[in-house]
């Protein structure tokens, strides 16, 4: 693919179905438009919950950040684009420990976000729990949907003090649910739904209206005191762990059927197809009788 020189970067990539635009100045995701006319404003950034000196701390069993909302890693990324006949990419560099590729494949209706995170720096705090946060203009009225068994979708709501007079001790943890294959939000009136498919099981929530948050990496110097008596501070080759993973964004009109399938059925098929990806086997081609093959 051709790497565009810095000054001539065009802040969008597109294929037959999808046009993805990033903000020309900040380089952050700005909007995704489908050829059938549905468009959503969607921002995406990486944030982290820092561990402080609080008494109840995060660890292998629990998620207890020192504040309710995370801190953005940066508000501006360096980016460049790669264009080819099969794959188009926007490559973003958030910091020297977080990079991401926004990718479109030929003929696909999803936007793939491939992120590489780590080693997470420690030193200024007692550890970080990193999340990828999508903010959209979808009015989800505080509800979102996750699956916890890769089969049926469960309706979730997020508790916060203003919603009722109960004292919630861990407001953000109380809103986290397991996401095995996908997390979705939809707007009641505009019938737009957006789903983020995951390639491994992660924790997720929609804490504010129109948001989707997925936890992608944790590195902690603290122990939550529930019995493991070890910190979540794994190393590999002498440095903190580096994780590489993918999210796939799909969206559409969930009231409209495409090829006799509802949006929800199509999401289920996409998840299944990704979960049971084909296996690759390789063998030498030297001794092959090509004519017979």
């Amino acid at each position: 693919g051709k790497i565009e020189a810095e000054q001539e970067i065009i802040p969008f990539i597109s294929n037959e179905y999808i046009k993805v635009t990033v903000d020309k100045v900040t380089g952050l995701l700005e909007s995704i438009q489908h050829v059938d006319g549905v468009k959503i404003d969607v921002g995406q950034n990486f944030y982290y919950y820092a561990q402080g000196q609080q008494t109840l701390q995060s660890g292998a069993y629990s998620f207890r950040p020192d504040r309710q909302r995370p801190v953005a890693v940066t508000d501006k990324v360096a980016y460049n684009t790669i264009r080819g006949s099969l794959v188009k990419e926007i490559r973003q560099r958030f910091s020297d420990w977080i990079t991401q590729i926004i990718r479109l494949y030929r003929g696909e209706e999803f936007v793939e976000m491939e992120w590489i995170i780590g080693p997470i720096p420690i030193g200024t705090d007692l550890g970080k729990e990193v999340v990828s946060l999508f903010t959209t203009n979808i009015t989800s009225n505080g509800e979102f949907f996750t699956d916890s068994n890769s089969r049926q979708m469960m309706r979730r709501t997020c508790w916060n003090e203003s919603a009722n007079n109960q004292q919630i001790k861990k407001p953000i943890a109380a809103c986290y649910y397991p996401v095995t294959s996908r997390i979705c939000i939809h707007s009641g009136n505009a019938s737009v739904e957006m789903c983020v498919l995951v390639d491994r099981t992660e924790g997720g929530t929609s804490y504010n209206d129109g948001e989707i948050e997925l936890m992608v990496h944790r590195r902690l110097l603290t122990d939550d005191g529930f019995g493991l008596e070890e910190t979540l501070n794994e190393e590999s080759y002498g440095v903190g762990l580096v994780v590489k993973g993918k999210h796939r964004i799909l969206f559409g009109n969930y009231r409209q059927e495409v090829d006799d399938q509802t949006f929800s059925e199509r999401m289920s098929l996409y998840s299944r197809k990704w979960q049971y990806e084909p296996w690759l086997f390789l063998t030498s081609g030297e001794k092959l009788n090509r004519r017979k093959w």
Partner: protein
Amino acid sequence: SYELHLLRHAVSLVLHHDAITGTSQQHVASDFVRILSEAIDACTKKVSNLLSYLTPTWGGSRRTKNNQQFVICHQLNMSQCRFTENQESMLLLVYNPLSVKTYHHVRLPAIALHYTIRDFNDEEVEYQLVPLPAAVINLPGRSSTAIQELCFEAENIPPLGFTAYYIAPVRDQLEENEFAKKFSKSNP
């Protein structure tokens, strides 16, 4: 068979709630990884043996199974695969575990700047070479020299079946050295 028994045992072990959630001590987690990877390795030989039954016509006569050894690259997520980086030519078999037809975006570490890829109809397949991001090239533990990925689409993979591609790199050492030099300059 013994290999499948190994895998069955390993999979049932890592379904333990401490393995799934990561609430086991580090040495226990490392042991889970060891047990599972040894079982997968043992099964790879078994799978290779079965695949050679599926593909008797590639090498010898229809009645004999060919003795090609099939390998699985477990580090494609790091764009690293010693097998693809050292082969003159290779056969890629893409197996579909679903019960419906599917397709797949194949990505393999690329050492050459040009390739010929042919499907089982011996037709040329379109491909694209995508430069690897610096974050992948600098992954701790990565020892591959590949700085690009070979991307192409494996289409019409039958349910519970496979399709095959013949891939041959077209080497040109001078051009590759030139490209690597230019690449490292633009990706410090």
